[in-house]
Each structure stands twice: as structure tokens, then as C-alpha cells.
């Protein structure tokens, strides 16, 4: 690491130097440009294969029939909603302790995507619940805690954008994200701790998955595909945000120069 590792135009906080190599926005842009192409291609390939496998080729369930195919979208969305939130919390810790400008941008660009996948999880779950359970919605612990998760995503997206000073918005958003992390174990374990209408976990349990492999493997493929797509979208948004910030800094510098020359 050289001493001049931080080429961030906005001039990061003094602590942001030399800690994480890829937190340097310039290096991040160069490295992610290469990664991004592969990420999009892998996402298209894996998700395409997973969706064809899950929606067309996999067997129906013995009692749910074809309705079970909603799972191939619903479950990956639920995993991404929780996994994405954990990433948001990790970025928030980096933002609060090490004052990483890149972690701020990442968190800010992550939350709208997180809100979207959580909304899709709730919508597909509702569509699935109506024919199977006999209701669109109940206030059981699992469904309610996922709704809270959705509001946390929305709140973070709104809060980080609500301040004139972006850095302050990022700080307040990070605090909200970290307070909200208590909800993640509640979402995960709600089905074990309390009686719920929602069934317990099928895949992540101590003994064998309660799912036949012909249903499990397409599900895992879809989950990987959606995760790659999620990663690609968030990466593209973060890149755009970094570039936007550079442009703003350059414009600011030019305006200052012109002002100085005019004076």
C-alpha cells in the first residue's frame, strides 16, 4: 500500500486511507469494470438455466401441484432480502467506524434494490398463500417481521437521501440499518420460536433438507442466479454513484477555477 492510496475527489475522512484496498474508489472502478461483465454474463446464464429448470422441467409437488413453482422466485427473494440486509449492516459498520466513502455509496445504492426484492418476496408469498393457505395475508410472526424488514429497507433508502449533506445522510442511514439488524434473526427464527402459519425452513435445517433433490437443485440454481443478478445490479448502481460523485467534484473544481480566474 502506498501512502497516497486515496484518490477520492471529495477527500475522504483521514481514517479512510490504507485500510481496505478496494475501498479506494479509483481502484474500485477499475476492478469492478472487469468483474461487472462476468457478473452480468454469469447471472444471465445461471438464472436462465435455473428458471427453465424450475418453472418448466422440475416436478410438481404432490399436494401443492404446480403452485409450488412460485417458490423458485419467492425463496431466492427472501434469502436476498435477508442476505442483502446483512450486507447493508456490514457496510454500515464500515461507514460508522472507518468512515469509508465507498461503504456509504454502496449502502445508499443497495437499499432500493433490497426494498424491491423484499417487496417481490411479500408479493409472491401473498400470491402463494391465497391458493394454499386460503388467505392473502395473516399477521403471524414471519410475515409481520418480513413486512418490518421491507419498511427498514424503504426507511434506509429514504433517510440516506433526505439530507442536504450526503455524509450526514449516510451516517444516519447507517445507524438505522444497524438498529434494524435485530430484525434479521427474528425473521429467520420466527418460525421456530413461535407458532406461525408460515412453515419452518426446508433447506437450512440440521438434518437433510425436507425437499426432494429434483425440487432442491433447481431452487438452489435460481437462488444463485438471482444472487448474481442482485450483485450485478448493486455493483452497477454503486459504480454509477462513484462516477456521479467524481463528476460533481470535477464540476465543482471547474466552477471554483473559473470563479478564481474571473475575480
Amino acid at each position, binding site marked *: 500500500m502506498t501512502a497516497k492510496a486515496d484518490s477520492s475527489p471529495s477527500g475522504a475522512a483521514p481514517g479512510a486511507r490504507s485500510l481496505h484496498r478496494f475501498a479506494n474508489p479509483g481502484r474500485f472502478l477499475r476492478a469492478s469494470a472487469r468483474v461487472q461483465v462476468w457478473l452480468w454474463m454469469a447471472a444471465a446464464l445461471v438464472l436462465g438455466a435455473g428458471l427453465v429448470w424450475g418453472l418448466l422441467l422440475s416436478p410438481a409437488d404432490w399436494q401443492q401441484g404446480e403452485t409450488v413453482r412460485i417458490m423458485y422466485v419467492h425463496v431466492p427473494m427472501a434469502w436476498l432480502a435477508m442476505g442483502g440486509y446483512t450486507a447493508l449492516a456490514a457496510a454500515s459498520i464500515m461507514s460508522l467506524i472507518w468512515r469509508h466513502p465507498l461503504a456509504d455509496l454502496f449502502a445508499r445504492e443497495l437499499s432500493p434494490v433490497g426494498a424491491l426484492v423484499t417487496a417481490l418476496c411479500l408479493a409472491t408469498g401473498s400470491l402463494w398463500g391465497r391458493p*394454499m*393457505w386460503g388467505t392473502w395475508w395473516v399477521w403471524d410472526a414471519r410475515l409481520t417481521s418480513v413486512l418490518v424488514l421491507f419498511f427498514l429497507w424503504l426507511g434506509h433508502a429514504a433517510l440516506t437521501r433526505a439530507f442536504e449533506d450526503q455524509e450526514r445522510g449516510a451516517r444516519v442511514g447507517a445507524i438505522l440499518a444497524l438498529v434494524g439488524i435485530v430484525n434479521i434473526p427474528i425473521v429467520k427464527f420466527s418460525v421456530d420460536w413461535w407458532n406461525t402459519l408460515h412453515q419452518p425452513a426446508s433447506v437450512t435445517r440440521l438434518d437433510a433438507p425436507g*425437499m426432494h433433490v429434483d425440487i432442491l437443485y433447481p431452487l438452489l440454481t435460481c437462488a444463485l442466479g438471482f444472487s448474481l443478478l442482485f450483485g450485478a445490479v448493486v455493483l452497477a448502481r454503486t459504480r454509477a454513484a462513484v462516477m456521479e460523485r467524481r463528476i460533481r467534484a470535477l464540476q465543482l473544481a471547474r466552477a471554483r477555477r473559473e470563479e478564481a480566474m474571473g475575480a
Partner: protein
Amino acid sequence: MTRKKRRLYILLLCGLGLGSATALTLTAFQDNLVFFRSPSDIMREAPPANRAFRLGGLVEAGSLERGTGADGKPTANFRVTDGAHVIRVSYAGVLPDLFREGQGVVTLGMMQPDGVFRAKEVLARHDETYMPPEVADALKRAGHWNPAEGAPPPPAEWNTAPRRGG
């Protein structure tokens, strides 16, 4: 470095406080967070009269009687069990597709003086197993599983079973 360390410790402390506060709150509200109560819960602590609550459990094998009410609506009488205790349930209305003997159900209604639970709403509760129809048929034919009796055998016994024939 000290400032970073201090921020780290403050964050850890806040996390500890927040975590314990949440754990305490959830423990305190334990009774209100359950979506339904099992027959054993109700035997242990009788629900207040004339208060609606949710009763959940499995539909006992051989207990389902379907009929038609005086107003032409379908009716169903069945027993809900959790293995230890049983409660009789009567319901007038259309049952969800997944409803069958051995299936989990959650019913909303009130206890009648005669000890029958009159349900206003019946929801089917799906378990966490996903099985292709051929595999389920093979298990039933081999006598390993009768769905009316309850949960399927441990997944390790069937989740890699070949899927052939119908």
C-alpha cells in the same frame, strides 16, 4: 487509531444493549407473538369465554365429516390434535384446497359451552416438505407413510429417491 477503536467499542456496546432489550421484549411478549394455540395450550389454560382465538394443530385421521348446512353451505366437522389433546371443531364454509386429514390447520373462532370450537375461518398450514407426486405415491404404496396420519418420514429416506413411474 484510538478514535476508530472508540467508535468500535461504542458500536459494540450499543449492539449489546439493543440486542438484550430486544430479547427481553420478545420474551415478555411471548404469549402475544404466537399466531395460534395448540389443544394442549388450551387444556393447560382455558381461553376466556366469548373471546375469539386461533386454534392450530393437525386434522385427526378419520375425524372429518363433510355435510351441507340448512342454508345450503358446506359444513365440516373434524377434530384438531397435537398428539396429546384433541378438540372438536365445527365449521360452515368452503375449506382451503390443502385441507385434508393429517394436514396442519389454523382455525379462528370461539369455544362453545359444549366444548366444540366453532370456527369462522379455516386456514391450511403447509409443512416444510416438498415431494414430487411419484415419490409420495411410492412411499404410500410401500406403506412407509399414510398422509392422514401426519408428517412424512425423515427426508433423508426419500429426498434422493429416483422419480420413476406414476
